[in-house]
């Protein structure tokens, strides 16, 4: 065998890494296509008169968005519902921020009996499927007169997310050198003032992440609203969309997509402006 024959390099060998890359991208694009197509359809459909072959807009219209200025039969006023949704999202974020920043501080910066066990319990609760407790929760909300009230849903949604949020924010507190806190103590502050004036400003990035996620969590909440809210005075966009879905499924995609696009506006904004942040943080937030 001569040296010239030893290396047999053809098209496949020369381009192996290119071929590999093309294959991987092609596979990913095919696998992800339902997601891309579905969301693209959602936006396009909401502004078009109809879709030729199901996917090609036939004309621009805003009549799909009529729910914003007209009464749609079977649905309450969308502005009122949107306001409720805002209140729910904002309050869930507020409650979770308050409770988790306090308990995360306690769990990160104090030594007390039962601390390790409490941390484990929180982790367990994070993984625990709350939906399995719906019956008992219904009973408790009835006893505490929190049925058919946004407050009940706010507290419930917040409680479901607090174990996660506490863990996240505890991680941020853990990252602060303890000397900072000692310095505060020596400079003349009580533990509570050190917390407020020194530690809280330092965990601000964590608080922002939690605020964003919890706003979305409240904003998107469906099961608790549909189960524990009876009067459409307290509806949020999830129940509004769900009811529209029941009334107009397969019939008026224009209206349904317009409502949906309206509903997912905050999610869209987050997706466009903060998607890097989002993937990193949501790993801890998801339950599977």
């Amino acid at each position, binding site marked *: 065998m001569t040296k010239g024959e030893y290396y047999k390099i053809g098209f496949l060998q020369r381009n192996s890494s290119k071929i590999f890359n093309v294959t991987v991208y092609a596979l990913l694009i095919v696998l992800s296509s339902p997601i891309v197509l579905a969301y693209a359809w959602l936006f396009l459909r909401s502004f078009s008169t109809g879709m030729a072959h199901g996917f090609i807009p036939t004309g621009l219209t805003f009549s799909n968005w009529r729910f914003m200025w007209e009464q749609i039969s079977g649905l309450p006023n969308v502005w009122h519902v949107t306001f409720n949704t805002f209140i729910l999202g904002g309050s869930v974020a507020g409650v979770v921020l308050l409770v988790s920043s306090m308990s995360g501080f306690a769990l990160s910066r104090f030594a007390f009996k039962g601390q390790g066990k409490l941390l484990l319990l929180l982790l367990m609760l994070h993984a625990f499927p709350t939906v399995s407790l719906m019956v008992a929760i219904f009973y408790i909300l009835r006893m505490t007169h929190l049925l058919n009230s946004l407050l009940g849903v706010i507290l419930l949604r917040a409680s479901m997310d607090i174990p996660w949020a506490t863990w996240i924010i505890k991680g941020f507190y853990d990252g602060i050198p303890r*000397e900072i806190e000692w310095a505060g103590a020596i*400079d003349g502050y009580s533990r509570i003032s050190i917390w407020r004036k020194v530690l809280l400003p330092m965990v601000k990035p964590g608080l922002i992440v939690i605020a964003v996620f919890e706003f979305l969590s409240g904003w998107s909440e469906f099961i608790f609203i549909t189960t524990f809210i009876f009067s459409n005075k307290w509806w949020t966009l999830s129940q509004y969309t769900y009811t529209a879905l029941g009334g107009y499924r397969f019939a008026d995609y224009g209206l349904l997509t317009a409502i949906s696009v309206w509903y997912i506006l905050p999610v869209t904004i987050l997706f466009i402006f903060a998607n890097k942040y989002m993937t990193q943080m949501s790993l801890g937030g998801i339950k599977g």
Partner: protein
Amino acid sequence: MATIKLENLTKKFNKVIAVNNVSLTIKDGEFIILLGPSGCGKTTTLLTIAGIYRPTGGAIYMNDTIMNDIPPRYRKIGMVFQNYALYPHMTVFENIAFPLRTVKDISKTDIKTKVEELADKMRIASLLERKPSELSGGQQQRVAIARALAKEPQILLFDEPLSNLDAKLRIIMRGELKRLQETLGITTVYVTHDQSEAMALADRVAVFNHGILQQIGSPEDIYYSPRNIFVAGFLGSPSMNFLSGTRLIKNEGTAYIEKEGKKLVEVPSKNLDKFENAPSEDLILGFRPEDCKIVPNDEIGIPGKIYLLEHLGREVVVNIEAFGNIFKVIADPESRFEKEQRVVLKLKPDRVHLFDSKTEAAVF
């Protein structure tokens, strides 16, 4: 200003005894240095004085008031941390003003005047609007000191404040600190594991090991009269040479230290009565590298052979092998030695130390 008294102070973390039964009194205006190897409990002692940690046993007094359960903010202390612990979200001005804001009835202008005065003193007046992350290590250090001084504390605490600076700046800051402490006259407790820093700064040095206070005294005291093997070995660089298995013999009215029948050094007669409470067998002989001479031959001395020469410029460290040990001796770089050369180490009789090998305590 303030005196500090530690009485049988003990601090345990679960099973680890970080500070073990330490008693010491710090005089008003004194500069005390806590010195010892890593993990010996210096920081723990300092933080217990600060009130960050609570003593497990014993008591802390400041001006004769028992302070065990008093939180740090009532102790009138200022502290500078190893990593400075400046608040990253506040400007330099805010950092220095932070302690002042706890003072009741202090006006905004008073705070401003005070901060500017401190900034002038520490020569950081031009940096007041910056964030700590925009400062060099040395500048952060000055801010940390200004902050510690803001409330005019009665006690200043330092935990290895110079260890994050480069060697040159460390020497400069060391001098500034000393002057500052002398002018202000504030009682100061300063932690370091750097013995040259301790020697340069301290009125008195407290040497720690394994949480136990080994010896406290002036720098000269602990250098020239170490109370045990640990203190003797910890101070000085290169450290003291030790030779074990030696004993005291008396020969025609003169006393010697000998090993294996060889007379090593004469014992000055003023030291003989120290053997009343100590054994004369199984002793450890100690001598510093600078306290001996290398001679070609002598009756009395440690016979050995040259093992290695380390040239350090100003001096040469001669390593001599004798009795299976390596001894380091500082010699004039002019002197001509050669490897494997047979020599005798001639010790200065009034500079040698002798330790009881069982208790490790110094006989003299």
